[in-house]
C-alpha cells in the first residue's frame, strides 16, 4: 500500500484544494452518528482519523480515484451526510474517505415524467426545497431529513415518516449511476419498472458502499398533495393499536404518515395514558375525507378529534437534540434500534423483548413505536435510555439482547438503519450462512481487490 503515492496522484487529479490532509480537515470524518462514538467523543475520547479525504468533483473523478486506490492498495469509505447510526461511514486509521458532497447537481431528467436527476452529494433537504418551489415533493422524510444526503440514503435503504403513503427510498429510485471497482461507471437508466434479469439498481440500494459508489440518482417526484389532514386517537393498549393498524392497512386506507406508540412512549411524548396513534392523510380532499371516515369506523373513534396530538408531534419531528440533551445532562445515553416483523409474531416479539430489555442493568427506559406498516407486517422502533457509566458493556448488552429476541421470533435484524459496523456480527441471523456467503462472493466479484470498506466480510485490512 502506498498512501503517499495515492495522495500525490489524487492531488494531480483533483487539485490540492480537494485532498484534505491536515488534522482539522480530517477530524469531521472520524465518525458518523453511531451513538457509541458520539458519547465517546463527548467524554473526551478521540476516534481515529482517516489518513486523508478526497472530494471528487465529477463522476469521472470518482471512477479514477477508485482506479488509483486499486493501483496503490488503498481502502476507501464513501461519506454522505455522516448521519448513519451504525458506523458504516467510519474509516479505519489508514483508510481514505471519499466525500461525495461536490456531486451536488439537481435538475430535471424528465419533468413530464416527474424524474429528477440528482448528484449523490445533494442534501435531501436541499432537494425537497428545490422540488417544493415547483409544486413537487419527494415526500421522503426520515427524521434525519436535515442531515442526510441522497447517496447515503440510497446506500442505507432509508425510509421516511410518510412511508405508508409513499414507500421507502427503493420506491423512489428509478435509475442510478454507480462506480464499481471491477467495472467502472455503471449507468442504469431511469425506468418506471423493468424485468431485465437482476434489477441492477436494486443491488446498490442498501449496499452501504461495499459494492460500488453511487454517483447519481434518478428519483421520482410527486405533486404536492391537495389536502393534508391530521388525525389521532387513543387506544387502551399497544396490542389494540397494532390490531387496529393492521386492519387499517389491510383495508388499504392507512394514513400516509402513521405512527402508533406503546404505553411507555405515549405518556412521554403526548402526556396521555394508553396507546396513542397519529397520522396524516394526504391527497385529493374527497378521498382524504373518505379514508378518515373509514379509519374512524375501524378504531371506533373520531380521528379528527386527535388532530392536535399529530400537530404536537409534527412540530418537533426533526428536533432530536432537545431530548438527547436533556438525557445527556442527566448522565444518560440514548439508542434507537429498528427491526421488522411479520404481523403473526409482532406482539409476541414486542412483549418478550420488553421483558428482556427491562432486566438489563443500567437501562432506565425502553419504549417502542411502530411507524412503518405493511400488508404482511410492521417495523418496531425501540427507544432506549441508559446510563453513560460503563457505556461499552451496557451498549453491547442492549444490542445482543434485542438481536437475540429478533432472531428467536424470525424477525429482520434491521428495517431501515442498515448494517454498518454495529450489525455486521448479526448478519447470519438474517440471511443464514449461505446467504452471507453469497453477499461476500458478490463483494469479491464487484470489488476483487477490496477497495471499498474491505473489513466488512473479513477482508484484508
Amino acid at each position, binding site marked *: 500500500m502506498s498512501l503517499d503515492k495515492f495522495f500525490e496522484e489524487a492531488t494531480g487529479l483533483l487539485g490540492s484544494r480537494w485532498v484534505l490532509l*491536515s*488534522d*482539522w*480537515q480530517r*477530524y*469531521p*470524518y472520524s465518525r458518523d*452518528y453511531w451513538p457509541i462514538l*458520539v458519547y465517546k*467523543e*463527548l467524554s*473526551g475520547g*478521540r476516534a481515529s482519523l482517516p489518513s486523508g479525504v478526497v*472530494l471528487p468533483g465529477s463522476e469521472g473523478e470518482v471512477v479514477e480515484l477508485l482506479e488509483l486506490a486499486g493501483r496503490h492498495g488503498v481502502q476507501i469509505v464513501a461519506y454522505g*451526510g*455522516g*448521519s448513519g447510526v451504525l458506523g458504516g461511514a467510519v474509516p479505519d486509521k489508514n483508510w481514505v474517505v471519499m*466525500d461525495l*458532497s*461536490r456531486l*451536488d447537481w439537481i435538475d430535471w431528467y424528465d419533468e413530464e415524467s416527474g424524474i429528477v436527476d440528482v448528484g449523490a452529494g445533494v*442534501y435531501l*433537504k*436541499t432537494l425537497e426545497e428545490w422540488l417544493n418551489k415547483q409544486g413537487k415533493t419527494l415526500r421522503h422524510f426520515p427524521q*434525519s431529513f*436535515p*442531515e442526510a444526503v441522497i447517496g447515503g440514503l440510497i446506500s442505507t435503504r432509508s425510509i421516511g415518516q410518510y412511508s405508508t403513503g409513499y414507500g421507502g427510498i427503493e420506491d423512489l429510485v428509478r435509475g442510478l449511476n454507480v462506480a464499481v471497482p471491477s467495472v467502472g461507471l455503471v449507468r442504469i437508466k431511469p425506468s418506471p419498472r423493468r424485468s431485465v434479469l437482476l434489477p441492477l439498481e436494486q443491488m446498490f440500494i442498501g449496499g452501504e458502499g461495499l459494492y460500488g459508489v453511487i454517483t447519481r440518482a434518478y428519483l421520482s417526484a410527486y405533486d404536492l398533495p391537495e389536502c393534508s389532514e391530521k388525525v389521532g386517537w387513543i387506544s387502551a393498549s399497544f396490542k389494540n393499536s397494532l390490531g387496529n393498524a393492521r386492519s387499517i392497512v389491510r383495508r388499504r386506507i392507512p394514513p400516509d404518515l402513521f405512527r402508533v406508540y406503546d404505553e411507555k412512549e405515549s405518556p412521554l411524548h403526548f402526556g396521555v395514558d394508553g396507546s396513542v396513534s397519529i397520522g396524516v392523510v394526504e391527497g385529493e380532499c374527497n378521498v382524504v375525507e373518505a379514508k378518515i371516515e373509514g379509519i374512524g369506523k375501524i378504531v371506533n373513534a373520531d380521528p379528527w378529534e386527535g388532530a392536535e396530538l399529530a400537530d404536537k408531534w409534527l412540530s*418537533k419531528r*426533526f*428536533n*432530536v*437534540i*432537545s431530548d*438527547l*440533551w436533556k438525557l*445527556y445532562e442527566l448522565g444518560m445515553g440514548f439508542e434507537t434500534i429498528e427491526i421488522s416483523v411479520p404481523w403473526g409474531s409482532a406482539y409476541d416479539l414486542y412483549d418478550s423483548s420488553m421483558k428482556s430489555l427491562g432486566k438489563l442493568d443500567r437501562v432506565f427506559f425502553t419504549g417502542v413505536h411502530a411507524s412503518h406498516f405493511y400488508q404482511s407486517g410492521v417495523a418496531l422502533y425501540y427507544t432506549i435510555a441508559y446510563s453513560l457509566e460503563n457505556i461499552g458493556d451496557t451498549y453491547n448488552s442492549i444490542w445482543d439482547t434485542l438481536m437475540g429476541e429478533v432472531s428467536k421470533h424470525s424477525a429482520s435484524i434491521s428495517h431501515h438503519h442498515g448494517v454498518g459496523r454495529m450489525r455486521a456480527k448479526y448478519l447470519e441471523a438474517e440471511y443464514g450462512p449461505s446467504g452471507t456467503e453469497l453477499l461476500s462472493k458478490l463483494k469479491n466479484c464487484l470489488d476483487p481487490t477490496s477497495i471499498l470498506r474491505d473489513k466488512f466480510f473479513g477482508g484484508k485490512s
Partner: protein
Amino acid sequence: MTEPRNVLNMCVLCPGICVTECPVYMATHIRASAPNNLARIALKFMEGSKDMEDALWLCTGCRSCEYACPMGNKVWEAVRVLRGQEYISSTEARVERLTNNSKPGLLVVSPSKPNVNIVKTLGGDYSLYWVDSGVISETYWSGRNPILNLNGIEFILADDMDALTPLSLSEKRLVSPLKILKSLGAKRLLGDNGYTLHIPCKTPREYRDDIIGGISQVLGSPESIVEGCVAGGGGLPVKHPDLAREIAMYTMRNTNPGRPVVTLCSNAKMLLRKLGYQSLTLLDLIEEAAQR
C-alpha cells in the same frame, strides 16, 4: 452568555440539524465548517489541540445555524470566544460630536469615518454625533449591552443591520435612513438597470418583510433579492480570503454582476466591491444623493 463548553457539547451531540443553513459549508464543502463539526473541532482546540485553530476562522458569525437550531444554540459565539475575539475591551463605544448647535441630537452609526457630505446634508436639521457601528454590533452580539453615552442624543441613524437591531431596542427614536433617502430622491442614483437587494444573514427574521417593503417603497422594487451571508465578517476574509470569495460568489450566484447591490451590511459591501460589484449601503446612498 452560555458556557462555551456546553454550547459546543450540544452541537457534538447533535447530528447537525442546521448544516444546510451554513453558508460557509454549503459554498465550500469544507465539512469542518459545518456547525456541528466546527463545534467538535472547537472543543478539541479548547482541550489543547492548537493545530485546529484554522477551522475556528471558518465561521462568519452569520447566525443562520442559531436560527435553524431547535435549541437556539450559538456555536458562532462560543467559537468567537475561543479565537479571542471577545469584545470585552471595547464595550465602551466612543461617540464623536461633529456639530454643535441647538438642534436635536442625531447619532449616526456607521462603520465608516465621519463623512463631510452627510454632515452637510443633515447638519442643518440636527446636531450630529458619530459612532463606529462595529463596536456596537460586536458588543451586542456577544451578549453585552454596548455602553454608549447618549446624552443629548434624541435620534439614531444607522444603516448597518448589525447595529440596527441593538439600537432599535434602545429608547432612542430611530431615524429611518429611508426617509432621508426619499427626501433626497435617491431612486435615480441606481440607474435604469435596477438593483439587487442584499438582506444580510444576521437580519432577524421578524424584520425581513418590513425591511424589504420599506426599501422597495423608496428605491423601487429590487430586480432580485439575495438573502444570506457573503462572508464579509467574522475575520474569515482575513484568515481565509480565497474561501471568503468562494462563499460570496456562491451567495451571489444567481445575480447579475452588472447591477448595483444595495446591502444592509457594511462588511458585505467591502467584500462585494472586491469581487467587482458596485455595492452600496444606505449611508453610501445618502452620501451620493447629497453630493449630487
